Structures are given as C-alpha cells and as structure tokens.
C-alpha cells in the first residue's frame, strides 16, 4: 500500500507540474485534408492544424498538438489527457451531453457516398449491402438508423481502414464527410467515385472542450468570431478545401 501511495504521489507531482503547461490540442491525424500526419515531417498537419495554430497565436495561447485514436478521443478529453479536440468533429446534441463545443469553424458539410467506380446503388431501396463507416461518427449513426435493418453496417477505427476495405471489395459503399470524399476521389485515379444523394448531417464542425473549461471556450469563440469577420478563416478554408471556392463562407455573414 505505501508503494501504491508513493507511485500515486509521483504521478500527482508529475501532473501538477504539467498543470501550468500550454493548451493541449488533440487531433486524429487520419482524416485528410482536415488533419493528417505530414509524410515529410511526421508531424500533424492539415486544415485544423493551421487553424488551431492561428487561433492560439491570436488568442495569445501556447498550444501543443497530440494525436489520439478517434474512438477514444472524447473519453480522453473528459479524462483530461488534453484540453481541446480539433478533429473534424461535428457538433451534435448527443456529443453535447458529454462535452462542450465552440461555435462552428466549418459550416455544416454534406456527407457523400463513395463506391468503387462503376457500382450502381439504389439508395431508396438499399438492401443486402455492406456499408462502411468510421465508428462513432455522425455518419455511423445515420447509416445504422437508415439502412441498419436490411444491410450490414461495418465500423472501422479510421476512415482510411474503411477505404481499404472498400477498395478491396469488402464493402459496397462508404459514407463520409464531403471534403474527405472529394480528396480521396481526386487522388484515387478513378478507382473510387462519388455516388447517390448528399446527406446533410450535424451542425458544422467545432472545437470540442470539457464542460468545465468555460474560460477557454469564450477565448476561442471570440477568436473564431474575429477570424470569421476578417475573412482569414474563409481564406484558410479555401486553401485546404478548394471546392469551397470562391466563397464567401463566413465573411460578411
């Protein structure tokens, strides 16, 4: 027992010295172009990393990045392993029960279906198909609800793992955010394509925060406001999501 307490004290000490540390931002690092690991540097990169760094600079915060698997990204925020999530996370009522969000920094983005090129699907009467989603996403909830009974829904740890299964013919269709889909379709060399209806889900993408971090939320909200008004957020969005050009997205609104 003394040993346990000693170890506890050691960890507590570690923790308290780290308490004065900068704001720790978590991302998934596997959802290009929102966030991914840059090949050359091996560090997180993408729209959300650029945006996060700019927000921190303007708000006078010192920020660090870390990656966390998608399926445990909310529990680990709540557990305090980092202070904010910027990982293409849509603002939903269900998530709001556990965590808090800033205002959105990306407007609601439709979700698209991807299939292997040449696959025709009847979305009005889909049955007996294998539908892939990243587990714990808004798309996962939607697909389960809409197609669950008569189709097989497979959940994956990352979107890229689902993509591997689609490409290898183990899935018939994937539902994912439009920007991810656009990027993948463009780079696939014709292997996969967009199909079917757009699906409108969620209330846009925001920064996930612990409910107790009111101060950080206000700071970030004010900075997002500023970036929306002066057009710098629009510029950043168009840089990473060329299909959103020419805007305006938030500016002047």
């Amino acid at each position: 027992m003394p040993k346990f307490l000693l170890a506890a004290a050691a960890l507590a000490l570690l923790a308290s010295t780290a308490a004065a540390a900068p704001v720790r931002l978590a991302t998934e690092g596997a959802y290009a172009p929102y966030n991914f690991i840059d090949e050359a540097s091996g560090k997180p990169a993408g729209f959300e990393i650029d945006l996060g760094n700019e927000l921190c600079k303007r708000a006078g915060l010192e920020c660090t990045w870390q990656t966390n698997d998608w399926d445990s990204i909310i529990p680990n925020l709540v557990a305090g392993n980092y202070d904010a999530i910027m990982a293409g996370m849509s603002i939903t009522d269900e998530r709001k029960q556990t965590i808090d969000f800033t205002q959105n920094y990306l407007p609601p983005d439709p979700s698209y279906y991807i299939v292997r090129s040449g696959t025709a699907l009847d979305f009005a009467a889909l049955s007996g198909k294998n539908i892939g989603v990243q587990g714990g996403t808004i798309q996962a909830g939607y697909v389960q609800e809409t197609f669950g009974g008569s189709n097989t829904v497979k959940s994956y740890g990352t979107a890229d793992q689902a993509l591997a299964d689609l490409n290898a013919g183990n899935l018939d269709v994937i539902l994912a955010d439009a920007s991810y889909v656009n990027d993948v379709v463009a780079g696939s060399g014709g292997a996969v394509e967009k199909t079917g209806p757009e699906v409108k889900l969620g209330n846009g993408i925001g920064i996930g925060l612990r409910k107790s971090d009111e101060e950080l939320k206000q700071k970030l909200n004010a900075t997002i406001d500023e970036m929306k008004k002066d057009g710098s957020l629009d510029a950043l969005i168009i840089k990473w999501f060329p299909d959103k050009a020419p805007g305006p997205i938030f500016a002047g609104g």
Partner: protein
Amino acid sequence: MVDSLPQWLLDVLGQDVQFWLGYLTNGKHLNWYASVQYTLAAGVLGALVALVLGTLAATARNSRSAPVRVLGNIYTSVLPGVPDVLFFLFFPLAFEQAVEWVRAQAICSPSDLGSGHWPPCPDANLILGTPEYLILAAVSLGIVYGAFAGNVIAGAMNAVPKGQLEAARAFGMSPLQVMTRIHIRQMWVYALPGLSNVWMLLFKSTSLLSLLQISDIVLWADRLGAPNFSRSAGFVHPDWRWAYYLILLIFYIIITFISEKVFAALTRWAGRGMATAGAV
C-alpha cells in the same frame, strides 16, 4: 536524408532506388523506427516490475503469516485467469481515477465533490501524457506477468534441495542469510526456463501499447500502411498494411530468437558448478 548522399552514389542508385530510400526515410517512417523505443522500454520495465512482484509473491506464498500466504496465492492464481489485455486497459484507468479521487478529497470544495462531475474539480484532474502512460502500461504488464513469474519462482524455490538449506542453517546462518545467500541464489537455475517463458509472453504483450494511445510500432504500421488517396497527405498508394505488419511479425520473431539465446547463456551461467542437466 537522401539529399545528404554524395552525387556519385545517387547516380549509381538510380531514380527508383532514390525514391524508395527517400520514402522509407521520410518523417513518418522515422517516427515508426523511433517508436521501437516505447516497445522496448515497456518490455524491459515491465519485466523488472514482474520480477520484483514475482519474487515478492513467491516469498509471500511461503510466508509464516496466513493472511500474507493467502494474499500471495490469490495474486498468483486469480490474475492469470484474466486476459492480459483486459487488465492492461483496466489498470491505467483505475489507477488514474483512484489517484484523482484521492486528490479530489484533498483539493476540491465540498460543493464540487457533490456535483457529480468527474473529476469533481479541474485541479484534481490528472494529466497523463505518453511517458506516464508508458509507465502505467509497463506496470500493468508487470503486475499481470508478475503473477506468472510468482508461480515460476515459487516452484523454483521448492526445487532447491532441502539439504543445501539445512547445511546453511547448520553453518549458523540466520534465516535471512539462508534466504538471500543460498535459497534465492540457487533458485535461479530452476526458475530461468520458466522466467524465459514469462518474458516471451510479456514482450509479445507490448504489441498492445497502442490501445493506451501510445504511438507505438503497431499504430505507426497501421497509419503508414493504410491506403492514401489524398494528395495533400503525401504519396498516394493502395493498402500496404499487410507488408508493414509482416515486418512487425519478423521484428517480434527476431526478439524471440535473441531472447532464447540470451536465456540459454544465462542458464549456463547460473548453473555453473551445479550438477544439473542444463550445465554442461
């Protein structure tokens, strides 16, 4: 990396080889190679914890005090009945929450404590990063395999010929001296084959590190091998995961091979001057 090579060598290598050299030494791959340190650290640290706990458990099982004996027996016989991966996920969470609870009692105001939030107040929150998780991971591996090691060591202590202990006592050694100078010293020869087995199990379990959000070799293999169709994320390639996992498989087999050699040498060394089949 490739840019630093002399021009004549680049000419000899040709474009293709240059490309692959560059690809395999990009930042993402370097991260992968560097992450071997987590696997090795968790393995070695876990083994040390397991050895200490195993020795303690074996001693406890031979203790004169009945409660200590029962405790030793429960530890060494119940824990192996639970999958290592379950304990591996449970222990760090449980430890973190327990420490936070203790801190909360001391730090938080009574109104916070009754609020139903977890942790009750932000100050009680433990902040854990990769180093802390690595320690917790190693300790959980150590606790699980310490129970296995306890069984091995207890068996080995019983295998030490009673005559040797009696001779030591006859020489006038104290019980502690008999224990440290004769019993534990002689025990190693009998324990080493079993401990070798436990070490192999423990090291193979280090493949679970990514479950605790440690960016270990398994996580990077998955991220590197996963198909990439996004030009902004780098080189576009199909699903290569099986090749990366095959490399991990070979890595673990090589470690097993090296471990076998090391334990064989250790057994020879520990058994020097003893009339056992292991000593030649």
